[in-house]
């Protein structure tokens, strides 16, 4: 059994961490949080230069030709650093949608730009407040153009390309859309974590091309979400790990009653419980990584399990990181709130926990292993 990342993968991890230590300090995250800039374009360029965007894209399509395990490693580090870049939108969502649904010609046309980072992609799915379901999608595809409105599009203000789910008489399909089209209107949204960009996209007769079979859109979208769930789960455990480290460090350095607060059982046990949740989530993420990298039949279960437990672990660690810091944890100046905000953003990014729990149990229902 070899249920760990390889030495090469660990080397990659360290390399990414060093780059982010230099180019994605908390001051850089705050710069996006506090300004109107939708993302850190300088950091994006650094990642481009390192070829990070193309990690899991075939070299024939301009990528590095490494695999999903490498991409998981990247995701964890980006999550740890709270990187304010459209990585998950472009790579976990748009690229994966193209891998799942596009034909060769479409891949050749679109993937190299995303692989190099020259282009930024995203997924435009939600149209109403509440869970994403087939009947909530009203956007129309007619005579080669899309009409309608997508809300809460991640990195919608900076994306060049969107993968859009829309309907025609044959049901739901996925479409690739060039967002520089003049029929596209973008409106920035205010969210709990302004270090990431979200916006509403309105399409007025915008041209697009269909990806995959007509009517197969919902099925394809579910595959994309399962893959993205594993990758985002790594972002989440990266963030959770950092929050736990911050709390542990503070508990060792901060004194009260003449002793480090980390010597009090109340603090100690709070941190131990955070660690336990994180370790369980990490192990589930590894299983998700394995399922993703081997395209295993268990991917839907493994993805839902990784997503639910990583969501819980990040929320748990980020909120009790504030608690460990006491009043200082509630200042704008300390970084605790950055992790708290991000954990609650990622908790609903691909749909809420209750939706994913339901998906998880549906997998258990259909499995014979009782």
């Amino acid at each position, binding site marked *: 059994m070899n249920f760990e990342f390889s030495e090469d993968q660990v080397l990659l991890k360290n390399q990414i961490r060093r780059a982010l230590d230099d180019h994605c300090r908390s001051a850089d995250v705050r710069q996006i949080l506090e300004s109107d800039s939708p993302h850190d374009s300088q950091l994006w360029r650094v990642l481009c230069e390192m070829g990070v965007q193309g990690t899991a894209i075939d070299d024939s399509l301009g990528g590095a030709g490494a695999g999903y395990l490498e991409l998981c490693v990247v995701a964890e580090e980006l999550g740890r650093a709270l990187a304010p870049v459209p990585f998950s939108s472009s790579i976990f969502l748009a690229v994966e949608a193209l891998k799942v649904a596009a034909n060769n010609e479409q891949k050749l046309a679109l993937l190299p730009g995303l692989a190099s980072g020259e282009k930024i992609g995203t997924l435009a799915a939600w149209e109403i*407040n509440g*869970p994403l*379901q087939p009947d909530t999608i009203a956007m129309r595809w007619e005579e080669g153009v899309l009409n309608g409105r997508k809300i809460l599009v991640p990195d919608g203000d900076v994306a060049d390309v969107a993968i859009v789910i829309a309907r025609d008489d044959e049901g739901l399909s996925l479409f690739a859309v060039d967002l520089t089209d003049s029929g596209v209107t973008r409106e920035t949204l205010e969210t709990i974590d302004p270090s990431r960009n979200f916006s509403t996209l309105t399409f007025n007769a915008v041209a697009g091309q269909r990806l995959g079979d007509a009517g197969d859109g919902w099925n394809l979208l579910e595959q994309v979400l399962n893959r993205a769930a594993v990758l985002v789960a790594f972002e989440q455990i990266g963030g959770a790990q950092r929050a736990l480290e911050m709390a542990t460090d503070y508990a060792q350095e901060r004194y*009260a009653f003449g002793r480090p607060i980390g010597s009090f059982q109340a603090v100690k046990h709070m941190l131990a419980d955070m660690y336990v949740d994180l370790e369980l989530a990490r192990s589930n993420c590894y299983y998700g990584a394995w399922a993703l990298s081997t395209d295993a039949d268990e991917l839907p279960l493994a993805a839902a399990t990784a997503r639910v437990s990583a969501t819980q672990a990040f929320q748990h660690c980020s*909120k009790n990181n504030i608690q460990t810091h006491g*009043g200082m*944890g*509630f200042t704008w100046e300390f970084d605790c709130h950055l992790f708290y905000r991000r954990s609650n953003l990622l908790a*609903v990014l691909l749909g809420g926990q209750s939706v994913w729990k339901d998906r998880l149990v549906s997998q258990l229902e259909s499995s014979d292993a009782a």
Partner: protein
Amino acid sequence: MNFDDTPQEAEFRSSVRHWIDDNAPKYLLPYLEKASFATMDLGDYNANDESKAWRKKKFDAGWACLSWPQEYGGVGASPIERVIWQQEEGHYAALGGLFTIGEGMCGPTVMSYASEGQKKRYLPKLAAGEEVWCQLFSEPGSGSDLAGLRTKAERDGDDWVINGQKIWTSGAHHSDYGMLITRTDPSVAKHQGLTMFFLSMKSPGVEIRPIKQANGQSGFNEVYFTDVRIPDAQRLGEVGNGWSVSLTTLMNERLSIGGSMPTGFPEMLALVKSLQTGEGLAIKDKAVRDKLADWHCRTSGLKYTSSRMISALSRGETPGPEASIGKLVAGSMMQDMSMVALDLQDLSGILVDPELAELSARFQAMLLRSPATRVEGGTDEILRNIIAERVLGLPGDIRADKGMAFSDIPTGR
């Protein structure tokens, strides 16, 4: 067992009700009804002015600082009458935030420790809302361990010279006076070298800086003291006796019960009664019902625990440290509830624009504010200690700094 007023209480309630009905600033009601989770937005009205005006009106009619003696601006009412007043004041109570610390903590301490002349000078103006007071206790290095404070007071003739920093001073920027605890002798054990003063917040050398909080708001301040001079006459209690003085102050907090601790439950119930999830109304979802029942039980439990405490007041008893459970229960519950509320809104749970988010983004505000509730005025951990030690009688923790001179206590960084 009943929820009824005694005849005397009923009469008091009726006169309060009439007076409020005749005098309250009803034009503010639409704003005040939306005030919750430590925010109040009065639109074009000036919050300070409106607060002071309502206060003055109450004072003139004899409804301010009800339980204080008449000579200091009160009317000598009983604690239960104060509770009845609070109940009847309802939404208008949000206008009292500016004076809570002054009435609840500074006033009683001044009453116990200041000279008669000072009491006559300061208390009526405090009661009338003409002068606002704040409390300068917490420091960056001493929160839960309040007695670990380092702000220095050194004697110089008839004055004391203050140097140091306080934090989490709510309302400092609106305050005229402050009650300040300082260290006058670092060579003795930490509880023994403290001394309490009051001072004008306009004194030279006092600098007030608002703290930007994690949720982006600024309700608190840092206050810096650089060679600030306080006359010895403004000392409250003996030199070295500041810890007992502070205990008087903190114990008076306990009497501030009767107002109900907000839990967010009514908002949650409203949300799930109106929110459509993919499969119908949220309240029809069994997982939601399961959690809702738990939260209702806790909210209801807090409400009737408060009724039991008010009954004790009504009988003339003083409620004990049991009151600590309110914030302990409500803090975590608000945090849990807001996370579930966001989850039910799915991806749209991230929206903070009141025009776009469910229930005017109440739950997003609650999510970002609730971590503070679990810390301010006693962390969850300190509250559990208090319950375990003072209610259940369990022994205290081992004290690492017991008997040490303050200057010898390890402080980490």
